[in-house]
């Protein structure tokens, strides 16, 4: 019984970090109505930025947020502004701009390969930092300290994004655009600017996720791919565009990944995750916490 509790807590901690990683994806989808295939790569770039910031400055990983988050916001903002916006404009009369999806796939490949070129295929982990390898031990009970920090970061970031969207004018403008682009434009909202902003915020949350991940995970050029698939599943599970759904979806995946292997081979645990994903698509296509929407 104690084992299960230990596994469940680990699952919730790890799952919240998955949810945080998926937050940007769901936000960008909610506003732009585009599946951003480059999301994993943005997470990967964030991990490199976080890794180098922490390694070169010797700061506590979470102090590095001050540097990583603004960098990633600017990166996302201009990636949308320079690379993706022109395609949007070219396809502005199309309801579902498929070409944009293809462009994000291109961005994914370019980012992954650029990183490979610049940093090589090496696997990197943070050495000697205050969080690395720290465990909270209560008798037989062991919890990873960097994951606890990650859990805190995930909950706070999700809350912050939610409040930002609910309470601020800019947040309202983003929600208005996501509900109806045409109507929002008529009200004087510059939709493209909102897109830039949403993309910037989405990428910045990937920056937060990266900071939570680097103290205990590897950094390498294709690390984004591992999280990519997980993020898609989480976002669909939680409901496309739902902010809180991302966190909850992440925690569900984390719990399955952590508890199921104790009863079967870890390979089967993965199969259960995908099985659940399909089941949700069949039964509740809008996701567990999503609203039915005209997407």
């Amino acid at each position, binding site marked *: 019984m104690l084992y299960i509790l230990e596994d469940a807590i680990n699952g919730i901690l790890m799952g919240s970090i998955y949810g945080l990683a998926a937050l940007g994806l769901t936000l960008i989808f909610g506003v732009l109505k585009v599946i951003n295939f480059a999301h994993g790569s943005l997470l990967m770039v964030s991990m490199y930025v976080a890794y180098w910031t922490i390694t070169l400055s010797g700061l506590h990983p979470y102090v590095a947020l001050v540097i990583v988050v603004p960098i990633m916001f600017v990166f996302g903002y201009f990636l949308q502004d320079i690379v993706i916006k022109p395609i949007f404009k070219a396809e502005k009369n199309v309801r579902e701009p498929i070409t944009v999806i293809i462009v994000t796939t291109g961005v994914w490949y370019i980012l992954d390969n650029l990183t490979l070129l610049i940093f090589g295929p090496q696997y990197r982990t943070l050495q000697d930092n205050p969080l690395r390898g720290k*465990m909270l031990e209560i008798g037989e009970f062991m919890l990873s300290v960097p994951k606890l920090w990650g859990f805190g970061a995930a909950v706070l970031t999700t809350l912050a994004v939610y409040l930002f969207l609910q309470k601020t004018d800019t947040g309202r403008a983003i929600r208005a655009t996501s509900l109806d682009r045409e109507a929002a434009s008529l009200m004087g909202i510059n939709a493209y600017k909102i897109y830039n902003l949403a993309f910037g915020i989405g990428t910045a949350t990937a920056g937060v996720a990266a900071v939570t991940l680097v103290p205990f995970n590897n950094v390498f050029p294709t690390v984004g791919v591992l999280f990519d698939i997980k993020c898609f599943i989480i976002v669909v599970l939680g409901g496309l565009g739902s902010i809180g759904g991302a966190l909850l979806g992440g925690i569900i995946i984390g719990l399955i990944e952590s508890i199921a292997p104790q009863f079967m081979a870890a390979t089967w645990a993965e199969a259960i995750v995908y099985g659940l994903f399909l089941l949700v698509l069949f039964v509740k296509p809008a996701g567990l916490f999503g609203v039915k929407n005209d997407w």
Partner: protein
Amino acid sequence: MKILEKIAVPVVAFSLLIGTALLAQAENVKIGNIEPMSGPSASLGQQGKAAREMAVEEINAAGGIKSLGGMKLELIYADSESKPEKGVAEAERLINTEKVHILSGCWNSAVTYPTTAVAERYGIPFVVPVSVADKITEQGFKTVFRIAAKDSWWTRDQFAFLKDMETEFNSPIKKVAFVYENGDWGTGFATQWKELAKKAGYEVVLDEPYPSTSTDLSPVVQKIKRARPDVLMLVSNAADAILLTNTIAEYNVKLKAIIGSGGGHADPSFLKATGKNATQIFDIVEWETDVNKPGAKEANEKYKAKFGQNFSGEAVDAYLAMYVIKDALERSASLEPAKIIEALRATDLSSGPGMIVGYDKVAFDQTGQNKHAALVIVQVNDVGKGLERITVWPKTARRAGYTPVFPMDVK
């Protein structure tokens, strides 16, 4: 211009004629090498080429094949691009057009397998330095000779090593755990492990395939911890090897030994990314630069100076292959394929410049497999120069002055 042409054409033609006549006179032993010179395995093909060149240069400089009047070895290369059909076509061309006496290659098992069949059809000896698929020497062919240990011997040697450790340190092993990536490679190893564990009388307390793409391996590590094995055996790719090693250290799992199977544990970035968490882990490899064999260090220095990198297991096998061929030619004293094959079959090589491998002898069994081939087991440890891989097994190849740490005593 006209005049120039009138002079030039006959002059060129004449010199070409003399040139070919001269070449024809000084016949060499032609060794056809099919290697992946381009494509995904190109770097391995290049290593094989470099090692062969170094060996042949040495052999020729030392007077070539004495029993054939100082005849020189000549290397001819063909690119397989790692494609089986390309390997087969190149073997045909090397035999029929280039008239090679011996074939060698092809690194990729998938290429070597069908290509050896071509050599068998023509009765041309085929020396395989390093394709490891078991089936290559299990086709009943008479012309195939493999120097490296085959695939199934990796697991055989891991268990032989464990038995030797039990005896040497008088520390019995009872329970083993198998944790491996769930692809072909990992599950293949695990199938053999289970057989071997049964024979060795070990109890298997955990048999866990996991997806290599896992982003969190703490659930698997928890399982290992709760199963309380003496020895943990792993097959991992790079990212998961690092993640497992670090997580095992974090959860403070107590084990007598952790044994990797190359792959991720041998990845150049593994030691850097795990740091001291990798201390005292064992890993199995084809070869390590510190093997305690006469000439190994010097040969590696020379190779490094020439080609800018350390000998790899593949390169060492290719290097040795040239010396095995030389040894056979000395005894066959003939270029007739049947005679060379006969000489290869009678090979009993235990010394000389090529013998820098971890095992002590090259001699082929009925199938053409070098029956003395074995892998090398290393232990990661810090003996004053930072973490490094130190050869510990076979005992004859163990680094001088190093005693393996068994059971592990790191926190």
